[in-house]
């Protein structure tokens, strides 16, 4: 059956945090060996949502694969798009106009804020609070309306194109975004009062699962959990892409590496994203929004990789091309896969309530793990 079965003790029993469960966000099965309320061992079982995205990437032309990238992690769809078109541009040496780069950064950061807002609501829903998710979804709807007006979709955007973006933004978008920034800044106080200061929440989350730098290095943990452990590793600073070198923002880090630090890092990241959007809106130049690229463009032989920072961690695309317009090999490294792999070691001996809470802190999106 699994490794757990070989080491089963007399007085323990198995519990399936099964594929259908309210708090695993997606179809994830975690096999737990329980002694009373403590989970002695746990083992995640994947594959319930495997859609062979990498194989599809190797069977379609590079231009036809773009909608699939949005479907892998539907919460960071624009960032996944950005990584993919960045990869093709890097391989083929295609230039992107400056206006398009700024538009990409603005829409990426809006997507990141939207992903964190949904995580905040869902995390608190896992903990048993039913109202904060409604408040965060209200804020998230504002972002979705702004992005719908410019891209046409609300969740699975295929907005970035190789050579730029597919539609230009106008003054309506800029005004709506500025109004949204002002509104969200005033809403942070509500979340502070209702959630961050709440003694029940703090007791649930503080000093629970320690993400140590050693653990992170062994499992390839990235994203806010790594930054909560004190390591300021963010792809936007470590391997800068697009116009991020010209923008001024901080990387929030935590001190102890427990789940409260990961939570605070995400909340502060939302504020930093707002800063980035403001600067990008101020620096937005005029000009073309897309360099036309032939659809039949054949990629030069060779390989390239491109990393971006999604809301969950480092996303890396790697492509090997054999000179045609269908890639020979497309490898997608998703952050949630590595984040999930710390679960067996981190949650050994925890109470089941803490296990559910830690899974919420890791911010897993199962479709991107299973691809």
């Amino acid at each position, binding site marked *: 059956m699994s490794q757990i079965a070989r080491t089963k003790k007399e007085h323990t*029993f198995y*519990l399936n945090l099964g594929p259908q*469960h*309210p*708090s695993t966000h997606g179809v994830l099965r975690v096999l737990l060996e329980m002694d009373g*309320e403590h989970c002695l061992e746990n083992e995640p079982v994947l594959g319930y949502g495997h859609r062979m995205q990498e194989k599809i990437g190797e069977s379609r032309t590079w231009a036809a694969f773009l909608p699939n990238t949005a479907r892998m992690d539907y919460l960071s769809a624009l960032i996944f798009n950005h990584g993919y078109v960045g990869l093709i541009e890097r391989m083929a040496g295609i230039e992107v106009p400056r206006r398009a780069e700024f538009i990409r950064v603005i829409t990426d950061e809006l997507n990141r804020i939207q992903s964190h807002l949904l995580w905040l609501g869902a995390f*608190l*829903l*896992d*903990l*048993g*609070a*039913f*109202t904060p998710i*409604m*408040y965060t979804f*209200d804020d998230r709807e504002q972002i979705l309306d702004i992005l719908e007006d410019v891209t046409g979709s609300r969740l699975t955007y295929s907005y970035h194109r190789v050579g730029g973006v597919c539609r230009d933004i106008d003054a309506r978008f800029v005004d709506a975004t500025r109004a949204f920034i002002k509104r969200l800044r005033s809403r942070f106080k509500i979340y502070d009062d*209702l959630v961050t200061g*709440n003694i*029940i*929440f703090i*007791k*649930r989350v503080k000093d629970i699962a320690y993400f140590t730098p050693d653990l992170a290095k062994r499992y390839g943990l990235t994203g806010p959990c790594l930054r909560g452990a004190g390591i300021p590793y963010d792809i936007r600073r470590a391997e800068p892409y697009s116009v991020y070198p010209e923008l001024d923002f901080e990387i929030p880090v935590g001190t102890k590496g427990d789940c409260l630090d990961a939570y605070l890092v995400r909340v502060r990241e939302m504020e930093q994203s707002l800063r980035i959007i403001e600067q990008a809106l101020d620096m937005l130049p005029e000009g073309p929004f897309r360099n036309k690229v032939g659809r039949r463009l054949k990629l030069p032989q060779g390989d390239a990789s491109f990393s971006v920072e999604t809301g969950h961690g480092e996303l890396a695309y790697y492509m090997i091309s054999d000179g045609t317009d269908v890639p020979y090999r497309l490898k997608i490294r998703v952050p949630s896969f590595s984040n999930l792999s710390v679960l067996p070691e981190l949650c050994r001996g925890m*109470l*089941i*309530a*803490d296990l*559910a809470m830690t899974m919420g802190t890791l911010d897993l999106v199962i479709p991107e793990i299973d691809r």
Partner: protein
Amino acid sequence: MEMLNLLPPEFLRIVISAIIVVAFVFLNCMVLGYAERKLAGFFQMRPGPMEVGPWGLLQLMIDGVKLIAKQLIIPKDSGKMLFRVAPLLAFMPVAMSFIVIPFSEKIQVRDMDIGLVFMLGIMALHVVSTLLAGWVSNNKYALFGAIRAVAQNIAYEIPMLLSLLAVVFISNTLSMQGIVKAQGPIWNILVQPLAFIIYFVAAIAETNRAPFDLPEAESELTAGFHTEYSGMGFSLFVLGEYTNMFFVCSIATVVFLGGWSGPPLPFYAYSGIIWFFLKVYGLLFVMIWVRWTYPRTRFDQLLNFCWMYLIPFSLVNLLITVVGVKLLK
């Protein structure tokens, strides 16, 4: 009609009271369920039920009809008879407790000399139903919920009893009507504020409401002890929970908030019921408000809170009360 004259008047009175009490229990569940969903909507900036009836007033009634129409699916390896009995155990004892609640000066089914003890005894039966439901479902999640419920309910009965005991020392009687009359115009909440807070927190834990709703923690255990119940079985659990809520709030009203006393109204001996209901539903509003605001505590933190905070404070409160009563005598 002549046959009715042959029956002793006491018997007739008891039967009519029983019918009214059961009808009231169902009516209360409808009102409370509707209030909970509407208030949940308002706290979340949405309207709540609006479709069924004007402003959704008939929502709970139609929900009851729907639940009756559904099948009670009994799992294969569960105890068949006990599976059916568990929801009844959740509902019946609490309905029985309405016998001693003093709705007003003259409206009470029967005033027992040990009314308070009777009510606390009934509350203890509630645990049995939860444990039974979880055990007999043949489901690990349900068993989890049941075990948590037993530990939680037994632990939180202690501060409840201690805080009520302090009031009994002041009022010198255990009968519910006597406690109301002994308060007079100065309600016990002014004399025993700490006992009121401790009692209210313990009451929220006794009725398994958030932030102490671990037995039915949705996000960890699917649905806790009533995972396997569908149809009328599930609705009896819900009825039992809402009736339990009314029941603990009515004890709080009688013991701390002066029961049916208030500014005088015409036919005061009977119309005190209006003040009673206002106070009880005010406390129920606070319970609903608390539920939709806070996340859930963890199980060991819940027991920790009881043993480390509530019990010491209630013991200290009891000590001070006893010393005070002795000195003032």
